[in-house]
């Protein structure tokens, strides 16, 4: 459940009614979700999408986590064949920095890229060409 403030439109539900089952974002709020860490496979991989990231439901295990000023480097190992891949996650801490070695990471392949998650929470999104075209964030006024 989000902890966002119940807005007027939400609270304008009659004041005496029961609390809503779900507390959602405000209609026009800058989404915290849009801060999703975008990641890439570290150069050196022989194919654009390693086999371990090509199948939804594939399971990987965190072997190492290196946090730097640039972002987080995750080394993952395929639970099925032991293949290792390195994922470079841009930005700071939220996504992968708190992951522990041994954590299980699940792969989900969608049309615009690959979602990596741990215990149901997204830790990184690896966009393909379409995904990159769908993502852009520019603030025009201050």
């Amino acid at each position, binding site marked *: 459940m*989000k*902890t*966002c*403030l*119940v*807005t*007027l*439109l*939400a*609270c*304008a*539900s*009659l*004041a*005496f*009614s*029961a*609390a*809503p089952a*779900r*507390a*959602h*974002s*405000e*209609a*026009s*709020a*800058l*989404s*915290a*979700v*849009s*801060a*999703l860490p975008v990641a890439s496979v570290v150069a050196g991989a022989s194919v654009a999408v390693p086999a371990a990231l090509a199948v939804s439901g594939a399971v990987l295990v965190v072997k190492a986590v290196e946090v730097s000023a640039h972002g987080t480097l995750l080394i993952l190992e395929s639970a099925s064949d032991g293949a290792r891949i390195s994922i470079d996650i841009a930005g700071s801490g*939220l*996504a992968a920095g708190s992951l522990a070695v041994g954590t299980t990471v*699940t792969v*989900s392949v*969608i*049309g*615009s*890229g690959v*979602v990596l*998650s741990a215990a*149901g*929470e*997204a*830790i990184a*999104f690896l966009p393909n060409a*379409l*995904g990159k*075209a*769908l*993502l*852009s*964030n*520019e*603030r*025009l*006024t201050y």
Partner: protein
Amino acid sequence: MKPTRNSVALACAVFLLAAGPAHAGRSCEAKRPSAQTIEKGMNLAERTWKELEASGNRVVILARAVQDLSKYGLRYSHIGFAYRQPAANGEHVWRVLHKLNHCGTAEAAIYRQGLGEFFLDDLWHYEAAYAVPSREVQEKLLAALLDERAVRLHHKPYSIVSYAWGRKYQQSNQWAIETLASAMSSTAVTRAQAQAWLQLHGYQPTTLRIGPLTRLGGRLGSANVAFDDHPSEKRFSDRIETVTADSVFAWLERSGLAGPKMAIGLR
């Protein structure tokens, strides 16, 4: 400020009971989204991109549904302009120009985002809707979105229920139609002139029925909720007139500025 009057305390208690935890504004505290939220949001962005690409249009009014507004007879909560932006390589990308409130504060800004960001939220309905403006409107609107008119009528002070014909605050959907007005008319240079154009062309805001206790609770609990821009005679008869996505879609079709609203869902 600590409430000292019984009436205020009662109102706050009622508000808290009704609405759950209240805070001074939406927290900007980062949290991990669920994998499902990302998958569904990006899939909706992809479906929208494909439909817009196939349509041959250059700019549409695009809506999302972040909140459950069904008790007001509303389905969509927020609109922006989705348009083809020329890219350096001679191709194009689809971008959304819209106004966003910052973390529950009383301010907002204009953003140009990808379709992904537009739908990367914990949506109430994973459904988009869009209206296709007439060719003439598309031409004028696209020209405006690509020059300084895109932000000219932006007004930073924000209230989520700002008065549709007021100038003290400006909510996101209000910015959108005022910007549309300025694109359509060379004389709509100020917000007042844009609103005059909207009235002349028959825009009618949604009237929300919001009683005094809820108004008080909303105002006390939220930095981005204010009612002091509404005319007293309307406010004190519980009539809050504001710009909603659904009222914009209805007006666009009624006025002939755009075709009927079309929905895009996840299969």
